[in-house]
């Protein structure tokens, strides 16, 4: 139960806002939203007694009264946000192209930009890909689009916790990517969510909340890659509560990545839910670098025979960051395979939590599932908590999980030192190499390279400290 005041507060906010939410006139959506706010009333924010949230305390979120993002901020901060969009690995690629403008446009990758959860059409990079619809959810809801009605909420388990319920109640905007039947999209679709710290000239810097909903529909036989980027103003402290639904039809292949570099003071709750039909394939990647408190859930239902998924994740944490990764792979059909690798690099007083559950349903025979979680602790205050879980109700299965927690191999360090590499540099090299395994799986060298750099910068201690260490 949520404390009366929290539930009531959100209920009141919902009643006040619902008239302005996109798609307000749609009866099917209205009932989903009613269901969402009602569920939140029952569930509240997950507390300490909730086993799934045992290691993640969200009382700071529950206790904050978030403001609504101010639409005017996006306009005021336009230049900064445009620079951030231009800095994405995708934008660089365009700049390097030395070809004719027309060809350049043909090769460019589209970027959908959302500021504080709202679509910012003027910041987007437009680049049409044949057979792929890339639009904002709010626009499609406004048009009463049939495809969205079919897909919206299809994967989301609203009752699983309060954040999912809140998203169901409030979600009105986000990216919609529909890859039509048989299409192979050669270029990546990028989605950028940017959170602002407000603009001093417009409104006081109150923490804001947004509930975005991204939907990717990969129709039968299609192939595509979608990358979601999360970033924002350094001073931003708000809550981003996102849900991404991936609906993958027969024989479709989807590569999906979430790159989270949210501001250091922000909270980021993200739930990716995927449903895979017969013969389809999902490659899911999660890279977590930012946010003070984050929780990223990836839930995959392998719903058709022959469906396969690969889940890769990397979390690199420093200072007092807390990142919780929670994955569930549900083998609901026979002949389904999954492979999962999550790696954590945890420095300073940061805390990395991993829960990975593999479920094999009764009669789901001929299953292969393999899961690994490896954690590297770089400092004495660092904490790793891991809960790999197997729930097996069928017998013709090969399931395994492995989990390790440790520090850098002393022999490797010795080898590097022996060859004249300073301790800090050796540590950085080895750590980036440790993380590299996951980044290589991204299948996008440009993105991997950018992330490697970002990771290297993150591991760099301040110069004075570094000198002291090298001298010793």
């Amino acid at each position, binding site marked *: 139960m949520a404390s009366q005041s929290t539930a009531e507060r959100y209920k009141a906010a919902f009643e006040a806002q619902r008239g302005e939410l996109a798609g307000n006139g749609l009866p099917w959506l209205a009932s989903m939203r009613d269901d969402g706010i009602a569920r939140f009333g029952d569930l509240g924010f997950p507390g300490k007694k909730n086993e799934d949230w045992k290691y993640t305390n969200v009382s700071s979120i529950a206790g904050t009264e978030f403001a609504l993002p101010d639409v005017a901020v996006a306009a005021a901060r336009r230049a900064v946000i445009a620079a951030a969009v231009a800095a994405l690995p995708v934008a660089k690629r365009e700049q390097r192209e030395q070809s004719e403008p027309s060809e350049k446009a043909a090769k460019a990758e589209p970027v959908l930009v959302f500021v504080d959860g709202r679509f910012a059409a003027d910041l987007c990079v437009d680049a049409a890909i044949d057979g792929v619809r890339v639009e904002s959810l709010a626009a499609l809801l406004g048009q009463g689009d049939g495809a969205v009605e079919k897909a919206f909420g299809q994967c989301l388990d609203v009752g699983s916790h309060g954040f999912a319920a809140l998203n169901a109640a409030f979600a009105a905007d986000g990216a919609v990517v529909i890859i039509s039947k048989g299409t192979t999209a050669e270029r990546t679709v990028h989605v950028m969510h940017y959170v602002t710290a407000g603009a001093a000239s417009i409104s006081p810097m109150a923490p804001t909340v947004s509930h975005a909903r991204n939907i990717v529909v990969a129709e039968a036989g299609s192939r595509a890659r979608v990358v979601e980027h999360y970033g924002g103003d350094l001073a931003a402290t708000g809550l981003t509560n996102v849900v991404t639904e991936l609906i993958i039809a027969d024989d479709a292949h989807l590569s999906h990545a979430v790159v989270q570099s949210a501001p250091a003071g922000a909270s980021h709750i993200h739930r990716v839910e995927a449903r895979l039909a017969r013969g389809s394939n999902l490659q899911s990647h999660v890279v977590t670098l930012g946010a003070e408190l984050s929780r990223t859930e990836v839930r995959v239902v392998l719903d058709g025979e022959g469906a396969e998924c690969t889940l890769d994740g990397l979390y690199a944490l420093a200072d007092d960051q807390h990142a919780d990764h929670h994955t569930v792979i549900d083998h609901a059909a026979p002949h389904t395979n999954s492979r999962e690798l999550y790696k954590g690099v945890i420095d300073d007083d940061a805390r990395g939590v991993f829960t990975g559950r593999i479920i094999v349903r009764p*009669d789901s025979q001929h299953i292969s599932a393999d899961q690994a979680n490896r954690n590297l602790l770089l400092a004495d205050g660092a*904490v790793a908590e891991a809960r790999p879980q197997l*729930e097996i109700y069928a017998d013709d*299965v090969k*399931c395994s999980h*492995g*989990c390790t*927690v*440790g*520090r850098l191999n002393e022999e490797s360090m010795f080898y590097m030192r022996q060859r004249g590499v300073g301790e800090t540099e050796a540590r950085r090299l080895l750590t980036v190499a440790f993380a590299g395994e996951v980044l290589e799986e991204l299948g996008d060298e440009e993105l991997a390279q950018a992330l490697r750099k970002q990771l290297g910068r993150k591991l760099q201690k301040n110069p004075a400290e570094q000198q002291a260490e090298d001298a010793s």
Partner: protein
Amino acid sequence: MSKSTEASDFVDQQEEYKYGFFSDIESDVAPPGLNEDIVRLISSKKEEPEWMLEWRLEAFRAWEQMNARDGEPRWAQVKFPPIDYQAISYYAAPKDKKTLESLDEVDPELLATFDKLGISLNEQKRLSGVAVDAVFDSVSVATTFKGALADVGVIFCSFSEALREHPDLVRKYLGTVVPVRDNFYATLNSAVFSDGSFCYIPAGVRCPMELSTYFRINAANTGQFERTLIVAEEGAHVSYLEGCTAPMRDENQLHAAVVELVAMPGANIKYSTVQNWYPGDKDGKGGIYNFVTKRGKCMDNAKISWTQVETGSAITWKYPSVVLQGDNSVGEFYSVAVTNNMQQADTGTKMVHLGKNTKSTIISKGISAGKAQQSYRGLVQISPKAENARNYSQCDSLLLGDKCGAHTFPYIDVRNASAQVEHEASTSKIGEDQLFYCRQRGLSEEDAVSMIVNGFCKEVFKELPMEFAVEAQALLGISLEGAVG
């Protein structure tokens, strides 16, 4: 497909429960119900000192609070109807309860019961050199080899006797490892525990023989609440064996035991269990609810090793744990758990690393057949001060039949960067290729399955003391008879 169904039958040792009989001895049974008066009755029946009664009452009040607030814990992956704690009788003692000087004075019917169990005290005493403290229902009726143990200063007696003869020792250690308010069932046990074993090994003494106790649950509707306390003083060594069987009864019987081990610096305690209580019939009717709290505390350089073979009970809820408090201490857990038909087991271990250079090893093998559900649930915790801690865990599950389940829920919690923690788990059935390989070389399917299953469990069996290893292999062997063809 036929192979897996045949294979699923192989763990059918419960089908014809070998030890299902009920011996007709008049019991001195307390009326059903749980209240302060019952706690006082138990305490007075056992002629306990005043502090013991106070301790029990404190536990009872804590339990009442827990029961009123949350009720019995429901987090384990097991399902059972709510237990009516007021419908259980909390004390049963064989009526003829005078102090016995020798086996001759023991009720012949009781001795016959032990004969059926294959643990004739006479035989044991004469041949095996194992001291047996037989707990029949709740009161110890015979203790052997006391003399030999007394010569080296080892105290090995029933808990009630220990309270009479060595109250200070009991008082010093009781509840130091499993506190009164530890958990629902441990608290219940603290309030109403009936009897159990007490073992004290003085400093520097290596116990001259392996100690063993057989627990029995006899009279219907009497929950058995055993309390075991083993203290190994500095540099002492002891190996303790525990084995149990129970008669066939229809109504579920609650068993909530507490075992506490204290290993002082340099001490070594090895605790082995073969648990073969009545698991209920094929439809899940009857059987024992086995909700046990077992925990050991290791001081500097000490070692505690838990080895268990769990084949019985309708529901098992058991996590033998080690608190590695001292530097360089070692904890081990070796387990084979077999569940068949409607059995449910949620079992595992906790290794809590507090001291420096502490090491722990967990080897858990689960075999699930029929419609049974089995879970491994474990915790490995490395506290911030536990420098250079090391853990290795391996949990493997073997599935026999397509209606059973095997689950793994390890918790790994590391708060010190110098720790090395590894966890591995796998779940699979017997490979067709493994079977084929054996068949090809002329082994019958039955022998092949037996060989593969024994190989699967070998790592754990080799940790068992000799007699238990034989018993454990036999237990798996019996179940293989007639499973194929």
